[in-house]
């Protein structure tokens, strides 16, 4: 019988992310040390782009000065609109499509990239109002964007990304000076 009721309410349940998502990583984005991205892929293929815990923005008590989804003069991710079940009209992104630029109070600027091919569904406007969300909850409320890969590419898009295990190994091999 596969119908056993959960009675041990003290047992620590896995988090929402652990239950429904797979974590994928891109380390040292575009060769820039430690600029690691984390992609959370839902079992329904939807991907949430977030900063990995190791990203420089999240280190050493830094603060954020601004977040800008206007990635060029002609293109703002804030203008992205999708309609209908088929998500018509969403911007189509490739692996290295920039999503936003984040400037820290020390004037260093970082670009966050899509990391996967797919249709942009939404960006997180909450972090524009409350940039601290990005620092406090980078993997949930501080997400950067939601992307819907093509159905037929839902498995292949993560081929170039690292698994959680591979990523942790990669981080542990970094020279001490790079590690946070």
């Amino acid at each position, binding site marked *: 019988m596969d119908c056993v009721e959960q009675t041990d309410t003290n047992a620590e349940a896995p988090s929402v992310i652990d239950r429904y998502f797979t974590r994928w990583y891109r380390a040292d984005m575009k060769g820039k040390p430690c600029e690691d991205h984390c992609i959370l892929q839902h079992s329904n293929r939807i991907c949430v782009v977030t900063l990995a815990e190791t990203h420089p923005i999240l280190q050493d008590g830094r603060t954020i000065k601004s977040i800008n989804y206007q990635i060029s003069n002609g293109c703002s991710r804030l203008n992205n609109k999708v309609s209908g079940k088929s998500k018509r009209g969403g911007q189509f992104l490739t692996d290295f499509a920039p999503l936003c630029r984040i400037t820290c109070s020390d004037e260093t600027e970082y670009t966050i990239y899509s990391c996967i091919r797919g249709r942009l569904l939404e960006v997180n406007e909450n972090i524009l109002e409350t940039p601290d969300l990005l620092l406090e909850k980078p993997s949930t409320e501080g*997400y950067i964007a939601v992307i819907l890969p093509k159905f037929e590419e839902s498995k292949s898009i993560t081929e170039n990304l690292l698994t959680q295990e591979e990523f942790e190994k990669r981080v542990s091999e970094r020279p001490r000076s790079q590690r946070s």
Partner: protein
Amino acid sequence: MLPLKEKDKPIIQKLLSAGCCARCVLRFCCLSVHAAYRQPPQETLKELQAFVTEKESSKVQHSSTTENNKSHDAAASETLGGPPSKRAKLEPSEAAAESEENAAAAVITWRNEEESRVCVVCLGILQGLCGAEQAAKIAEAVKKGNYEFDTLVLSVSLPAQLCVREHSCWLHVKKEVREKGLALTKDDVIQVKEAFKWTMQGLVAKQLGGIAVVTKSSFEVGVEFTHPETDSDCHFLAKSCPDCFKPTKNKQSAFTRMAVVKALEKISDAKFLEHYPCPPAHPSSSCTPQDVQCLHVSVFIAGRYNKFCRSLPQTPWLIDGERRMESSVEELIAAPILSAFRADGFNFSSSGREDVDVRTLGNGRPFAMELLNPHRSRFSKVEMMQLQETINKSSDKIRVRDLQIVTREAMSHMKEGEEEKTKSYRALIWTQKPIQSEDITFIDDIKDLTLDQKTPLRVLHRRALAIRQRVIHSMNTRFVDSHHFYLGLKTQAGTYIKEFVHGDFGRTKPNMCQLLKTDTDILELDVESVDVDWPPAIPE
């Protein structure tokens, strides 16, 4: 005696010479006396032949012919519905009589071969395929289906080229038919289908022990004929009327009956005669009857179900074509119902649905099912109650109540105003920070909390992205321990409870994390009630 008139003679002669069967001749005489079609076609043929050759005697016994005509008129008025006086009563001219004589001679020489020849118009359907033997076959198929029924309706599907042949034959005798009655048109010619039914209904009824064969019934017995030899009869129409024959995805051939009828309405007589023989050419074989198809109209049933299991999807759960769970709510409910009604299949619908890991308790969730082609359709209240018991004994994962037969129309009540209805839930909540019982009591005082819910990520792949406002009417809490409490909710239908608790990446606002200022998660969820008052409750 066939109720024929003098003016039918040229029609009969022309058609017999052309190779029409006796019943088709009656059809083109616009004769709507059912009994005429029921008599054996060999007898009809003899009568027709005698009728067209009795010229001399009809002239001698002039008075009796007039008398006959009176009775014919009475029969004909049944056909046409108009007063007999409206129809012209002209005696055939001498010239016409002479040509009549020649035609009659042709009929006689042809007579001997006739009985074995396949009719050029009906392709045998009103000959050997329309009699006791065929009726027995139909009855046998019906009996084999083991259906429960009081009446049946006979439906006939004919090859499309029959329309072409009918048209050709109509053009052949159009002039003569029109002379018979001023208002007569092609529509007054009795259809093959009608003649077939008039002949067969009684025979089939007799074979089935007196079941009424009627024009409208919930049980349909379909007879289909094909005639591959003459399928190409229709093809010339595609050139003259290409718009009528657009290739369709579902149909094997573009030459559907509908398309052919439409094309025949458009084509001019001259153009038709240019491309198609008039009268139609002789076929070498008769139509082939296809398997008899029995179909009972759907039966609809409704009820409410409980789901007691957290690993049971509502409908079969397939990923990449593979089954994820061994069963489902709808399959557990449907299996005993399908076998009781002996239905071929079903369509299941319900007032909303729960996730695989959610239980539905209380009075349960309204559902309805369409049962396709049920072989049994009448169940008493007691029998429905017994069926419900069978379902409930078959599995402890689900339970059904209020099981009843409903009408198709009543099913819409279930979906009506679904959004306005309320639903009650009970959830087990986990909090990251430790809590004390007084930390959560404020939740009990929150009334009509409006949420802004973005389409949850978990369903966003198949639903449109939108922000929907949903109301939580009230909540209550029961403290369990320092990290857990039970949350009761009464909400507007369509509220996503899981997302309200964990926040869905901040995409549902406000959420329980914000209210309690700590991460919260949902460990268990039960639907306690679905407040839709359909179907009516049935006292147990």
